[in-house]
């Protein structure tokens, strides 16, 4: 058997030679790494350690395998090896009969190999690799020192590092400043065998951008059960987080707006009361004012797509049109009673309701005492840019002739002056001509657009 020893020791794989009854004749140095020393006692049959893989619950003796191998060469037989303590592990084995000169099998050359080299195992690995390669999630592994050992295309996309750049580097390179103690914590939990599910945290891309990720970390165990590293699956939830933030912002903004609307409605009721001649007049004036404000609000309703919900804008054109609506006929051929013209002017956020209220007060006043109280009466509202200001002119035509300028202590004048002068820092000039009111308003552009 010296010859067999010599030949086996030169084989690059684990191998042993046994007699046709299974008794071990020789084994090379690599064989114990697969079969363990317990299976390689000279003069005993390693096949006594084998059970079939397919039906571990009803093991057939390894002798059946041996008997088949005596008849013909066998490749890649999946079997389990039973340790002396009764536990089992998977291997595969190839058997090659060695005939004598008469053609009778007298011995077998047996090459056990780890199940990882098994074809079906390879197929499974290939399947897993394909799943990992095509995943949108970042899938990576690291050892217990936190060094990256694998890196899929999803990880390349999410973190910006190529596999070549990442493998071999500490996974801590992905951790942004201020979260340095996360990785030691994760490693400590891993060593205890814990798994972390959907752990939401921040990571930093190669380009420095911070991203929100949902992280699942599971220990990777060696066949003997010891933890040798971890698999990490990271999903980029930055977009989801943004959507949540937007939702929250929108909710807060709407809440704020609703409270403000009620505060303004309160103010309108409180301020209208002293100026009303009767409960009916009060009710009507309040209703008209709230109606004008609600129509103006609709123009500046925040959109879901906007990130900055507070600064939704409209134009002066649209604003005048919506405030004038109650004074216009519904018939499409009817001539307009409030004609307006001017360059496009943006009006944003808080300025919308105030300007709407001022224009409403002018229109309501005209309907009560001025041009719009007469069937043929009309108003021309024009505006132009005058340096840093918007200059508006309100001219009433064909109203009742005005002998004496009316007292200007009503709600309309009070609130218009307050908005125009104190809030906008502009001017308001009322000229009661016999032919009708001519009002000149000037508003700094920045008060409307800022």
């Amino acid at each position, binding site marked *: 058997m010296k010859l067999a020893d010599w030949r086996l020791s030169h084989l690059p794989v684990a191998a042993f030679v046994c007699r046709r009854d299974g008794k071990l004749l020789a084994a090379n140095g690599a064989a114990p790494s697969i079969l363990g020393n317990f299976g390689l006692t000279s003069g005993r049959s390693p096949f006594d350690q084998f059970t079939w893989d397919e039906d571990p619950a009803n093991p057939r003796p390894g002798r059946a395998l041996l008997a088949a191998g005596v008849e013909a060469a066998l490749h890649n037989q999946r079997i389990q090896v039973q340790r002396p303590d009764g536990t089992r592990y998977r291997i595969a084995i190839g058997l090659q009969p060695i005939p004598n000169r008469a053609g009778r099998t007298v011995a077998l050359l047996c090459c056990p190999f780890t199940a990882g080299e098994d074809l079906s195992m390879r197929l499974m690995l290939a399947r897993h690799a394909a799943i990992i390669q095509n995943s949108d999630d970042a899938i990576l592994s690291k050892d217990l020192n936190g060094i990256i050992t694998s890196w899929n295309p999803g990880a390349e996309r999410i973190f910006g590092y190529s596999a070549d750049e990442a493998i071999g580097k500490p996974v801590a390179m992905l951790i942004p400043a201020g979260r340095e103690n996360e990785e030691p914590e994760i490693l400590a939990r891993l060593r205890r065998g814990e798994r972390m599910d959907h752990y939401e945290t921040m990571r930093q891309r190669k380009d420095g951008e911070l991203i929100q990720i949902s992280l699942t970390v599971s220990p990777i165990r060696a066949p003997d059960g010891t933890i040798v590293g971890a698999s990490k699956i990271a999903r980029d939830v930055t977009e989801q987080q943004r959507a949540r933030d937007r939702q929250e912002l929108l909710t807060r903004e709407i*809440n*704020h707006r609703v*409270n*403000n609307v009620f*505060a*303004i409605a309160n103010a309108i009721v409180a301020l209208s009361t002293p100026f009303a001649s009767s409960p009916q007049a009060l009710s009507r004036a309040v209703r008209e004012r709230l109606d004008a404000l609600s129509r103006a609000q609709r123009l500046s309703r925040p959109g879901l797509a906007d990130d900055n919900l507070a600064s939704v804008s409209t134009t002066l054109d649209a604003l005048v049109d919506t405030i004038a609506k109650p004074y216009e006929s519904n018939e499409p051929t009817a001539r307009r009673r409030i004609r307006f013209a001017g360059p496009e002017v943006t009006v944003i956020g808080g300025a919308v*309701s*105030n300007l709407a209220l001022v224009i409403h007060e002018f229109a309501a006043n005209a309907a009560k005492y001025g041009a719009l109280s007469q069937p043929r009466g009309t108003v021309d509202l024009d505006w132009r840019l005058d340096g840093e200001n918007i200059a508006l002119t309100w001219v009433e035509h064909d109203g009742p002739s005005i002998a004496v300028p009316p007292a200007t202590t009503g709600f309309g004048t009070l609130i218009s002056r*307050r*908005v125009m002068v104190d809030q906008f820092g502009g001017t308001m000039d009322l000229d009661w001509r016999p032919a009708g009111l001519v009002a000149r308003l000037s508003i700094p552009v920045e008060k409307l657009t800022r």
Partner: protein
Amino acid sequence: MSMDRPAILIVEDEALVGLEIELAFREMGIAEVRWAPDLEKARQILNSEAIDGAVLDVLLGDTEVFPLAEELARRGIVFVFHTGHAQAVDINRQWPTSPVFRKPVASAQVARGLLDMLPDGAPAQ
């Protein structure tokens, strides 16, 4: 300034709401009421006139009123908050002596809240 004729500053970006609170003070006999729609105007008034108490809207456009609150506190001027936002708890923590009125609230309540903080109390209603 004197406590029988206190001067009040209303910082409120919404003209109507500011005016309503102003009228509430006037109905309580306070003649000296100033209104500022933003921090700039408020500082201008503070620097040129003697003010005894202030009503502060928390959010003026996109600007928070807190720097002005700190300034008022340094000057020993009492103030109350008037807010449409749901952060009354945070404000209370930072300004424990200043009541926070959540919009919408009756203006008389806000005015009364501030007048109660003035050293000699409010003038007769």
